[in-house]
C-alpha cells in the first residue's frame, strides 16, 4: 500500500466506515445497505450518514423493525448474486434474529457444500459506558465468535475500520462487522482521542484474521479489543512510569483468532493479561488464556490474568456501570500485582 502524506486525512471511526461503504458502493453496483434508520437518518451510530443522498433509497434501504425479515432477506439476495450489507442497530438485538444469523447466514455456505456463497456483511454497534443499561450496552463478542461459519471482526482505530470494512465487503463469506459506539467519534457521545485517526483516502484492505501489535514491550502481553485496546494502551503508558514495559495487542479479529501473534508475544514476555468488555465466562479472556495455556504454556512465567465485565447484566446507574466495565486502573493494578511482588 503506497500512500503519500497528502492522501491521508484524519477521520473519525464513523467517517472511516462511511468512506469505506461509499468507495465500495461506487465501485460495485451489486452492493446495497438495509437497516433501520440507515436512510435519511444516516444510521443511529453514524454508519451511513450521507449515503442516502448519494445512492438513494434503492441502495440505502430503510427497513421496518423486522430483523428476521430483512436480515433473512439478505440470504436470498446474496444467493442471487447481490452483496447485501445489513445493519443490526445494536448487537443487543441479535436475539430476535439469531436464527437467521447463525443457522442460515453462517451455515448455508457449508450445508451447501460450498455451492452457495453468501457475501453478506452484518454491521452492528457494540459497547457500553454511557448508561444505556442492560439491553443496549453489550459487546457480545464471544456470542458470535463461538458459532462456526462467521468471520467476526471488531476493529478499534479508524484506519482499521476502513480497511477491514472494505475487506469484509469484498469477502465472499459472511462477516460480522462490529463497530464500537464510543470509537465512532460521534458528536453526541464521549470524545476520545482514539476515535480520530489518519486514514488513507484511497481504497485498501486490511486482513480479517490478523491481530496487531499496537505497542511493543517485553514485560507483559496485554490483549484487548476495541475500547479495551484503548484502555490497555493508556494503562501501558502509566506502567511505563513504573518501569514496566507492556506489549499491547489489538485483537481486531474475534474469529478467527490470530494465535500466532499472541503466542509470539507471550514467548517474549512470558506474561499474559487479557482484557474484555464482554462478559467474563466463555468470553475472549477464556479463549485467549486457553490458547496460551495449551500452546504457549512453556513460555508462561506466571498465571494468565483475565479482566472482563463480570457475569451480570450491565447496570444502568453510572456508578455501577463504571464498576463492571474494566477500566485503565484495573489493568494497571493487575499488571502491577503480577510484576511487582
Amino acid at each position, binding site marked *: 500500500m503506497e500512500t503519500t502524506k497528502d492522501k491521508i486525512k484524519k477521520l473519525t471511526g464513523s467517517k472511516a466506515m462511511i468512506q469505506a461503504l461509499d468507495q465500495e458502493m461506487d465501485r460495485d453496483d451489486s452492493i446495497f445497505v438495509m437497516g433501520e434508520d440507515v436512510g435519511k437518518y444516516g444510521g443511529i451510530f453514524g454508519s451511513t450518514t450521507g449515503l442516502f443522498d448519494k445512492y438513494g433509497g434503492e441502495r440505502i434501504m430503510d427497513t421496518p423493525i423486522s430483523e428476521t425479515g430483512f436480515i433473512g432477506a439478505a440470504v436470498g439476495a446474496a444467493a442471487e448474486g447481490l452483496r447485501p450489507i445489513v445493519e443490526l442497530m445494536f448487537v443487543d438485538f441479535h436475539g*430476535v434474529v439469531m436464527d437467521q444469523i447463525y443457522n442460515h447466514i453462517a451455515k448455508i455456505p457449508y450445508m451447501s457444500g460450498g455451492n452457495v456463497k453468501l457475501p453478506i456483511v452484518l454491521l452492528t454497534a457494540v459497547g457500553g459506558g454511557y448508561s*444505556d*443499561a442492560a*439491553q443496549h450496552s453489550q459487546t457480545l463478542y464471544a456470542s458470535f465468535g463461538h458459532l462456526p461459519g462467521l468471520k467476526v471482526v471488531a476493529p478499534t482505530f479508524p484506519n482499521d475500520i476502513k480497511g477491514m470494512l472494505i475487506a469484509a465487503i469484498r469477502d465472499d463469506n459472511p462477516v460480522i462487522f462490529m463497530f464500537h459506539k464510543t470509537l465512532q467519534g460521534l458528536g453526541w457521545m464521549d470524545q476520545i482521542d482514539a476515535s480520530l485517526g489518519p486514514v488513507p483516502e484511497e481504497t485498501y484492505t486490511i486482513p480479517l484474521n490478523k491481530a496487531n501489535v499496537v505497542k511493543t514491550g517485553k514485560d507483559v502481553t496485554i490483549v484487548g479489543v476495541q475500547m479495551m485496546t484503548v484502555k490497555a494502551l493508556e494503562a501501558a503508558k502509566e506502567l511505563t512510569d513504573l518501569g514496566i514495559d507492556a506489549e499491547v495487542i489489538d485483537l481486531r479479529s474475534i474469529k478467527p483468532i490470530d494465535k500466532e501473534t499472541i503466542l509470539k508475544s507471550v514467548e517474549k514476555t512470558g506474561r499474559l493479561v487479557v482484557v474484555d468488555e464482554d462478559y467474563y465466562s466463555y468470553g475472549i479472556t477464556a479463549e485467549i488464556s486457553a490458547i496460551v495455556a495449551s500452546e504457549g504454556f512453556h513460555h508462561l512465567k506466571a498465571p494468565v490474568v483475565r479482566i472482563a465485565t463480570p457475569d451480570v447484566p450491565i447496570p444502568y*446507574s453510572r456508578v455501577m456501570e463504571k464498576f463492571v466495565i474494566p477500566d485503565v486502573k484495573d489493568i494497571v493494578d493487575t499488571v502491577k500485582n503480577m510484576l511487582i511482588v
Partner: protein
Amino acid sequence: MDHIDIKDLLWMYRAMKKSRYFEERIEKAYLEGKQPIFNIGAGAIPGEMHLSNGQEPSAAGIIVHLTNNDTVTATHRPHHEAIAKGVDLKKMAAEIYGKKTGLSKGKGGHMHLFDPNVKFSCGGIVGAGIPHAVGAALANKKKETTDIAVAFIGEGAANSGAFHESLNLAALWNLPFILVVEDNSWGISVAQKASTSIPSNDLRASSYGIKGYLVNDNDPIEMYKVSKEAVARARKGKGPSIIEIKTYRFLGHFQGDPELYRNKEEVPSLRAKDPINRLKEYLLKEDLSTTEEIKTLENEIYTEVDSAFEFAIQSEYPKPEEALEDVFY
C-alpha cells in the same frame, strides 16, 4: 353523555397531565450536565431518553378501566403508561436518576421500569413486551380471575415477529388480552408508510379472528370508549382485541434526535391539537369541570411530581459493588 363517567375523564386528565409534567421535568433534567456540549452519557440522567409527550391519550384512555391487578407491559417509551398505571412516582423518578431508592435500585433506568405492586413492566427491545402480557393473561385465565393484561407497542413494533406470535396465541387460547398500538407516525426516522404495508393495525385483527378498533386523531374520549368495550370483553372471556390509536409524537425519537427526517411543520401542527388541552376544553365546555377544579388538580400534580423529583435528587447512589447483586448463581 352516554356511558362516560365524569370521574373517569377527570382521572384521565390527571394521568395525562401528570405524565406531561413529569416528562417536562425530565426533559430539563436530562439536559443538566449535557450543555453546552451534548453528551449522552453525561449529566444527572445519562443514557437514552424517550419521551411520550403527545401520546398520553393512549395510556390514560385504557388504563382508566384497569385495576391494580391488571397487567400492563410497555416499551422504551413508558412514562405515560407507568404513570397512568400508578407506578410509584418517587421510586420511578429515583430510578431514572440511577439512585438506590429507585424501583430497581438503579439497575434498570428509564427503559426498564418494574413495579410489581401495580403489575407494570417495560423494556428496551421492540415487540418483546407483547408475549409477556400474553403470559400474564394466561396466568389470569388459569387462576380464573377477571384480571386482564394490556400490552402497549408502537406502530413500528407491529411489524415484528413477536406481534404475530403473541396475537395468535392470545386468540387461540382466548385470553383476556388487549394490544394497544400507538401509531405516532414514526419508528425513529422511518415513517409509518415506510414500515407498514397497510394503513392501520386494527385491520390485522382479522388474521387472528379477534376484534380490532381504530381511534383516530389522538382522541382521548374515543380511546376511552373503545377501550371500555375492549376491556369489558376481555374481562368477560370474550377474547383479545387490538386497539390502534393514531397519536402524536411531539418530541424527537429520543432526546438529542436531530429530527432531520421530518417536516418542520409537523410538530407545530400536532401541538396545536394537544390532546391535554382538548380534553380540558371538553371538560369545561361540557360543564363537567371548572377552571377552579382543574387548577387545583394541576397544582396537586405539580406538588406530587416535584416531590418525586426532590426525592430522586436527594437520594443516594448505589454502591458500585451492588452491581454484583441480584443475579443469583
